[in-house]
């Protein structure tokens, strides 16, 4: 027999509490029933909803009221079918549905029509690499040399720079090499970041087996180098990649001038033959921690600058 209070059933014959206006106390084994969403409507009267979608699906909702909270277990399958939520739903950032198969979506009603949601993705492999696994820097002139007489100052250099081109959703890898005899061409390799969301950091590193400089080793006379370490960049360490207009540059250079004191010969060498990639980019974003690597197959590089007070011997 049901239990009634003031004529209202509060415990029915099926042993269910009903029409309870308030509850006070603690609970132990007490969990929500899972309601399968049979159509596309999310009934926010239900505490726990679950659905597998077999195609792109646009959801509606009902039962909203301030404070109501529901959890939606959503399986978009390995095909990564795209769900679309009602306009009254807002996510902190639109989830990248293609990245994961299983989603736990927590829905909280700030009002009947102002509904906030968070989504956490699990498992599944992204349908396409979110960041290219590798990149190349073809034709990078990494062996450069200039010799001049008559006291003409000489320079040789090779440099790889990284910047985050946010306007075009890509990382700009700029590379250049040459001497001060002629203007050097700057080449670019672009790595798309269009498939990434909520990027929190982009970093890059270089890896050399060895590097050294002889001759003019006074870094104060260089715009960069003569070694990356001269600019504070250690091999194997990640450094932040700034947004465009600035760049993270790993540069090697040699610079000579007689300065009235006679001949000067400067030699900078670096060996890229390590077990680690020659250059590596690390991106931390909503899709995870992703890497793109570059193996420059041309081996060791060098910059040679020689200046003679008189004729070249």
């Amino acid at each position, binding site marked *: 027999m049901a239990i009634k209070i003031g004529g209202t059933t509060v415990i029915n014959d099926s042993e269910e509490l009903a029409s309870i206006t308030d509850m006070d106390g603690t609970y*132990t084994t007490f969990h929500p029933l899972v309601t399968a969403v049979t159509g596309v409507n999310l009934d926010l009267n239900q505490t726990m909803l679950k659905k597998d979608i077999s195609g792109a699906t646009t959801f509606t909702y009902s039962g909203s009221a301030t404070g109501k909270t529901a959890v939606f277990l959503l399986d978009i399958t390995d095909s990564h079918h795209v769900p679309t939520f009602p306009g009254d739903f807002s996510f902190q950032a639109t989830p990248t549905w293609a990245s994961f198969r299983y989603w736990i979506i927590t829905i909280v009603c700030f009002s009947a029509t102002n509904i906030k949601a968070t989504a956490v993705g699990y498992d599944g492999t992204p349908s396409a690499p979110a960041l290219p696994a590798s990149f190349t820097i073809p034709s990078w002139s990494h062996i450069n040399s200039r010799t001049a007489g008559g006291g003409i100052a000489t320079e040789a250099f090779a440099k790889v720079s990284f910047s985050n081109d946010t306007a075009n959703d890509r990382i700009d890898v700029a590379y250049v090499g040459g001497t001060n005899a002629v203007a050097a061409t700057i080449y670019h390799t672009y790595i798309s970041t269009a498939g990434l969301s909520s990027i929190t950091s982009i970093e890059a590193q270089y890896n050399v087996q060895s590097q050294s400089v002889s001759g003019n080793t006074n870094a104060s006379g260089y715009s960069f180098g003569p070694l990356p370490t001269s600019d504070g960049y250690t091999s194997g360490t990640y450094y932040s990649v700034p947004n465009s207009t600035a760049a993270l540059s790993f540069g090697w250079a040699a610079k000579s001038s007689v300065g009235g004191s006679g001949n000067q010969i400067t030699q900078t060498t670096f060996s890229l033959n390590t077990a680690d990639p020659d250059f590596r980019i690390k991106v931390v974003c909503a899709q995870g921690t992703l890497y793109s690597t570059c193996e420059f197959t041309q081996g060791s590089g060098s910059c040679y600058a020689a200046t003679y007070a008189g004729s070249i011997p």
Partner: protein
Amino acid sequence: MAIKIAGTEVISNTRAVVNMGSIEGNYTNFHGSVTAITTALDMSKPMMSVTLSGATTFTASNIETGKVALLMMDVTSSGHAPTWPASIHWPMGTEYTWDTTGITKWLVCFTCWDSTTIRATATGWGA
């Protein structure tokens, strides 16, 4: 005196609601009892707590679709490492770094996706 419906006790002599098929309505001051554990994660327990005194391997039981449980875990300043059962999956496939410097208190939320899979999230604090 306990209250029974068709012979089944629904409110015990200690004023505990038991054997409820469903509850419909609202609540205010209504919270999960905290159960101290050592290594056994019981998904029937809504709120568990543990302080690790060394590397700890957990097991999980009572996994049923829709069950949600919280674990308040203190890895202490020693950063003791928890090891989780294979049934537990982490967001984006990446487990948290439990010994992160300065992080000792973790709130781990377990959601049972089905009878074999638990999907979890965790948030860490320094104190």
